């Protein structure tokens, strides 16, 4: 007999994705009547409801199970939910209705809703469907600017690499299903030690390659530079935070979950160490010669994917810091791209000269920008420093390879301070001689978010322990 699902439990636990879905429908209908302010307020309300739901579920002491263990909401998933929702908040606040027309708000909410479902899924099939379904609206979001050619080039590159990632993920799931008979995480982690090891390794390598394309690990990162530069800047906020956080957390979920018995003994360990090493070194060196602000921030986000990928090498000892790192990264990176949007608009080219005289004319914006860049660089007393410090320390304490990796990460983090400080120096220099820069007239929400980000990036330094996550639970 077909088992009926428990409907009220489902709607209560999955309240956040469902409310985002329903509000996206309402926002789409409201957008038909061209009432953009109402649509924006409704989107904010839905994001706020999702945030309140995830904070409320954090107060539960045990994990929530649905669908016989296919969906598990535990502390790891909730902290990643908060990081994803923060990225969407900042992206929404940097959109203005004369440049982004009516379809951007519902697509953003739908993409976030499916990303939320992807983190709580404990089955490879649902994971694949939710990750692909979260990426599909972003193809349409990047193609917003219909007249600018560089935006279209960014879309085409993003699409081709995204399709390649879908192919590899689908083949990986097929091979793992064929070898083990099921795609559920609990059954996979039980059956892997007794099964045919080569096919499981093959499936895992294919899945890691696909997720590596999505989270911009280094030999597969080439789409990200042009896509982050060519997309409208509000959408780059969303891509560089939510999509990247989704990719990294899904790899962390897979490594500590079903495939945890696999990688200690096989070549997968070397592949992950190679990815981490390349992603630490290459973007930091390539960012030193950039002259365009959006490209520089794109390289810096790839470098941060490198720091996060230190976790993949020793996941059981270092995963507790991942939630804190994701939240601080999400706040800092969103603010930096948001300030680029405020200064240079949604276009693809934003030189450093547009930053000149920023401290004199708009001190709040310059202050928030500098704090976010210093937090990304890892300078105390900002939250990025505490996150990087804890991450490098726990990596170094785990094994001998860990010590060398942490040392390389520390050196590269020092290198990255150079290119961040160049940007801050431009912001604090005198403006070019074309008169006084006028005070930019920002809407109320942007002021609110800038002040909130300054406060959070300073306060969160001292309370990392609230965001420590444990290993994700994969079986009921």
């Amino acid at each position: 007999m077909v088992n009926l699902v428990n409907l009220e439990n489902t709607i209560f636990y999955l309240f956040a994705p469902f409310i985002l879905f329903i509000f996206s429908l309402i926002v789409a209908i409201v957008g038909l009547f061209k009432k953009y302010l109402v649509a924006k307020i409704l989107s904010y309300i839905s994001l706020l409801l999702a945030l309140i739901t995830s904070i409320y579920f954090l107060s539960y002491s045990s994990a929530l199970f649905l669908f016989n263990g296919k969906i598990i909401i535990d502390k790891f998933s909730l902290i990643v939910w908060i990081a994803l929702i923060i990225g969407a908040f900042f992206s929404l606040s940097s959109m203005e209705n004369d440049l982004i027309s009516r379809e951007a708000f519902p697509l953003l909410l739908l993409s976030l809703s499916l990303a939320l479902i992807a983190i709580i899924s404990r089955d490879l099939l649902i994971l694949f469907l939710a990750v692909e379904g979260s990426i599909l609206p972003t193809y349409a979001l990047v193609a917003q600017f219909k007249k600018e050619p560089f935006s279209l080039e960014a879309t085409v590159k993003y699409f081709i690499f995204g399709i390649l990632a879908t192919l590899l993920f689908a083949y990986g799931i097929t091979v793992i299903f064929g070898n083990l008979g099921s795609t559920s995480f609990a059954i996979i982690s039980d059956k892997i030690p007794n099964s045919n090891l080569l096919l499981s390794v093959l499936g895992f390598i294919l899945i890691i390659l696909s997720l590596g394309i999505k989270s911009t690990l280094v030999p597969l990162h080439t789409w990200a530079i042009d896509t982050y530069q060519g997309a409208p800047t509000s959408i780059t906020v969303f891509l560089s935070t939510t999509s990247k956080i989704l990719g990294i957390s899904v790899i962390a979920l897979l490594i500590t979950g079903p495939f945890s018995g696999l990688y200690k003994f096989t070549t997968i360990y070397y592949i992950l160490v190679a990815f981490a090493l390349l992603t630490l070194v290459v973007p930091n060196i390539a960012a030193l010669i950039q002259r365009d602000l959006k490209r520089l921030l794109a390289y810096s986000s790839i470098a941060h994917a490198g720091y996060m990928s230190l976790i993949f090498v020793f996941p059981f000892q270092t995963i507790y810091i991942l939630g804190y790192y994701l939240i601080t990264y999400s706040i800092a990176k969103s603010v930096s791209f948001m300030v680029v949007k405020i200064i240079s608009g949604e276009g693809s080219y934003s030189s450093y000269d547009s930053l000149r005289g920023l401290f004199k004319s708009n001190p709040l914006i310059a202050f928030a920008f500098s704090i976010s860049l210093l937090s990304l660089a890892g300078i105390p007393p900002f939250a990025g420093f505490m996150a990087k410090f804890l991450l490098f320390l726990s990596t170094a304490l785990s094994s001998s390879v860990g010590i060398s990796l942490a040392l390389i990460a520390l050196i590269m983090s020092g290198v990255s301070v150079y290119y961040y400080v160049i940007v801050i120096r431009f912001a604090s220099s005198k403006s070019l001689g074309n008169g006084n820069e006028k005070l930019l007239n920002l809407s109320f929400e942007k002021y609110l978010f800038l002040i909130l980000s300054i406060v959070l990036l300073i306060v969160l330094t001292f309370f990392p322990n609230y965001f420590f996550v444990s290993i994700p639970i994969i079986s009921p």
Partner: protein
Amino acid sequence: MIDVLVAILVVLPAFGIGIFGLLARRHFIRIIISVEIALNAVILTLGVFSALNGTMGEAIGILFLFIIAMEVAIGLAIAIQMDKVFQTVDIYAVRKIKDE
């Protein structure tokens, strides 16, 4: 009664042809056709594995087919927009914009 090893090895050249078309062709519609070919090779492999492991393979295959149709839809929307802006769907014509 199908010999599973032979069955899954025989479908691999189709996947390879699809990946080759994805990486090495210039016309955007041809890239989408190559993606179709590669994903259909995955569905055929999944059919063989569902013969081995039960009906869940077919359920997975049906859901993959939905995702394939959606990717093709958004890809073709991008192709139509590319035609409007550049008057061609040659991806090399798109590449020459960046002058850095």
